[in-house]
């Protein structure tokens, strides 16, 4: 049984936003325009948080890409009255759009603000509708959506490996954000495979979880920045 996880090396992240763009393209994430975005209705399954430290000229800017942390003890799951938000056997926090009735309890429960509600039916002006990803469903108004760890890529890699009668190997699955990252700050893989790159990184002494004290047991590990003494 696999257990999917992600490691984010904050030392490598330059805050360029390629991961956000890649995620939008891969997952058919609609845009809502400036007015609605100003009301907090923009949907980025992955966002780059920005932290300033110090005053000019001794000022530092630090970035942190934040996506669904795919918690093992996910606060979003027990609150869902329709089991739209549930835990898969491989440890993903899955969202079943067809079950979702839009109570938004899960978004209230999520301590990471990584669940996004469709306030509108999505639309793509021609010819942008031609770039929709056929492997990902387009969500309609009134449902909650979130980072899936690119579950469509996970499933297709597993199907391909099975058809070729071989085991899935580390690196077969790349999430869209990982593929888009020019600094290779993001590493996706199987946490149950002790030899995988993500396992190795997740056990690093630099590794931390986001809001670890909340006890959500995230499967995303952030590797702390290293400073030169």
């Amino acid at each position: 049984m696999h257990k999917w996880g992600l490691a984010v090396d904050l030392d490598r992240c330059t805050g360029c936003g390629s991961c956000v763009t890649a995620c939008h393209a891969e997952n058919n994430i609609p845009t809502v325009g400036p007015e609605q975005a100003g009301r907090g209705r923009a949907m980025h399954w992955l966002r780059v948080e920005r932290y300033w430290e110090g005053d000019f000229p001794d000022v530092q800017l630090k970035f942190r890409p934040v996506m669904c942390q795919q918690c093992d003890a996910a606060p979003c799951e027990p609150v869902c009255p329709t089991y739209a938000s549930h835990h898969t056997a491989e440890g993903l926090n899955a969202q079943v759009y067809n079950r979702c009735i839009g109570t938004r309890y899960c978004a209230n429960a999520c301590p990471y603000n990584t669940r996004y509600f469709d306030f509108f039916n999505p639309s793509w002006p021609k010819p942008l509708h031609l770039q929709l990803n056929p492997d990902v469903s387009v969500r309609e108004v009134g449902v909650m959506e979130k980072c899936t760890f690119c579950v469509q890529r996970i499933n297709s890699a597993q199907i391909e490996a099975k058809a070729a009668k071989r085991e899935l190997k580390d690196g077969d699955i790349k999430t869209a954000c990982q593929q888009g990252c020019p600094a290779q700050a993001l590493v996706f893989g199987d946490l149950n495979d002790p030899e995988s790159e993500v396992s190795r990184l997740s056990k690093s002494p630099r590794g931390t979880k986001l809001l670890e004290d909340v006890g959500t047991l995230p499967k995303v590990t952030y590797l702390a920045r290293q400073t030169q003494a």
Partner: protein
Amino acid sequence: MWSSWVELNPQTAERLNIAQGDLVDVTSPAGVVRAPAMIFPGIAPDIVAMPVGQGHEQFTRYASKRGVNPIAILAPQVVAEANTLAWAATRVRIARAGDADGSLVMFAGEMRERPREGETR
């Protein structure tokens, strides 16, 4: 982020009584443009910066009539040695022109956070 903005050092903004998102008039000898202020700790206190590339009069339905064009107020100065436009040599006056009107829309850091003090959302 959409549209244009004016990057201001936090100390400069405080001195001029300008808060994040407040509308600011940037006046140079060549003209004036109005854009929301963005408090930006990475800029020197005596410098203001604006992004170039917005404020098109005509450039398709998506790009036209968005933001302002700071090139319109650049002073016609040249770098003598290179005989090129001196992009960052224009002296400007910064003045608060009005309260935040929601035209500064940011994703990084602020998204879906608690509203700032005195702000209702």
